[in-house]
């Protein structure tokens, strides 16, 4: 399903890419008067728009605004020109990176299904591991169920003899369960509401730009939009059999059919720990990271997001690298966000500062995505 989406995405990008690149060439070297017009438009709308727009949409938006603005003085021309050229370059870069990512997803999907076929002669196992279509996965599920039961009985029989289920046996029986999609996962999911709120957030952030607002506001769920390439990449990675599966401890992932950002993850407790054999289901902490990551990537670009782990292994810091983002309009420096992921997300969704956490100062310009901490 995600392969398909990546294909569609790539197709749409390929078309718009050609148009965008030609338009970029034509607008970056036009006659002086046209240049000035574009300058005015840039100064008024750029700093709000720059980070938010998907690169593919950025071009038409910029062009359409360029129509009705007056002529500026020649002194401002050079600086503004540079600004435009720099902006075009970053946009082209991000277009190129998104395209390459989409291609990567396709490649990964193909190679994964090929590898699964080559490695795994059983017909039931293949579609479960490859990112297949929904009907495929449902049939797999029913087959896998019968299979798991059969194997389970075998394991039980063996257990009476020597008390141990072998590693290979466990893996063979559990493989069909590692990754699957589920119909109504978001019902009663702790963060289903937040996943829906991301859409709202797009709307808020793009409220003053007609072009972009249309695109985001009409998107019916989170499967549309620039973040999907990132989600698809994550899922392609997981569905390709990368999830750890051992007798000692294994990981199972379920992804909602309709909203691909709603995930549930089950980890079985590793041996020799106080969690041995227990089934621990994480619906919440991990999902919110994902939602936050998606929010960030769709707002900035795929490369601006950095995640960092604290020593305890929990994700504490989520920060934006300042290298790609130009300084704000009034000359304020780009600050590093050291809030926790959840806090930052809440903050954006509301457009104002949420509950201040200990050790983090409230920030006045929070809705413009700049943060300060007293680290």
């Amino acid at each position, binding site marked *: 399903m995600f392969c398909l989406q990546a294909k569609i995405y790539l197709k749409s990008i390929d078309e718009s890419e050609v148009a965008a690149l030609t338009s970029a060439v034509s607008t970056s070297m036009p006659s002086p008067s046209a240049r000035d017009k574009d300058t005015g438009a840039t100064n008024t709308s750029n700093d709000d728009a720059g980070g938010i727009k998907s690169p593919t949409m950025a071009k038409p938006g910029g062009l359409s605004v360029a129509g009705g603005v007056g002529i500026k003085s020649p002194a401002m021309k050079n600086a503004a020109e540079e600004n435009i050229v720099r902006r075009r370059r970053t946009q082209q870069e991000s277009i190129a990176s998104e395209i390459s990512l989409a291609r990567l997803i396709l490649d990964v999907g193909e190679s994964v299904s090929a590898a699964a076929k080559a490695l795994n002669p059983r017909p039931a196992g293949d579609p479960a591991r490859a990112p297949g279509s929904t009907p495929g996965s449902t049939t797999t599920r029913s087959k896998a169920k019968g299979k798991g039961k059969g194997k389970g009985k075998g394991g039980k029989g063996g257990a009476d003899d020597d008390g141990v*289920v072998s590693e290979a046996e466990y893996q063979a029986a559990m493989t069909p369960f590692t990754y699957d999609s589920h119909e109504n996962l978001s019902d009663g999911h702790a963060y289903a509401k937040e996943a829906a709120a991301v859409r709202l957030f797009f709307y808020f952030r793009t409220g003053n730009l007609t072009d972009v607002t249309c695109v985001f506001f009409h998107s019916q769920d989170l499967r549309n939009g620039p973040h999907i390439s990132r989600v698809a990449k994550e899922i392609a990675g997981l569905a390709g059999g990368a999830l750890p599966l051992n007798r000692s401890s294994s990981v199972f992932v379920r992804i909602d059919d309709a909203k691909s950002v709603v995930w549930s993850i089950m980890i079985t407790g590793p041996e020799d720990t106080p*969690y041995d054999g227990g089934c621990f289901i994480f619906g919440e902490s991990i999902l919110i990271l994902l939602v936050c990551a998606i929010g960030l990537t769709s707002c900035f670009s795929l490369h601006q997001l950095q995640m960092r782990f604290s020593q305890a*292994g929990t994700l504490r810091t989520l920060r934006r690298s300042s290298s790609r983002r130009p300084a704000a309009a009034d000359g304020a420096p780009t600050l590093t966000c050291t809030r926790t992921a959840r806090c930052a997300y809440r903050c954006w969704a509301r457009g104002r500062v949420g509950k201040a956490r200990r050790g983090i100062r409230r920030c006045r310009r929070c809705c413009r995505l700049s943060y300060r901490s007293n680290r």
Partner: protein
Amino acid sequence: MLQVIVSVQSLILCPQPYFNEPGYERLIGTPNGKNQSDQYDANIIDNTLRWAMIEQLRKPHPAFKDAIKAHFKLRKSHLLTVVKKRWTEGATGERKARVDGLFKELTTELNKL
């Protein structure tokens, strides 16, 4: 995401989670630290038995139902021999009664599978 998951699996679900708590890292290796850690583990064991095993067997998460059943079928013997022995080893008095009760419940739930 895979990185996040694997980190949770290996770093949070670790043998001695007590020393993950902030400020207790320096107690590693000391007798006092071991004592505290054992108490902490005992609490986790109770909750693992109660919520991550018995409760998941009674009311499994709908999305993971098949996986949970298959998992417990395959791990049944391990749980009822090795794990039971290890977890009831040092228990005395009230705690022993509690853990034994939990294991009894677990056994009945596992036999229903």
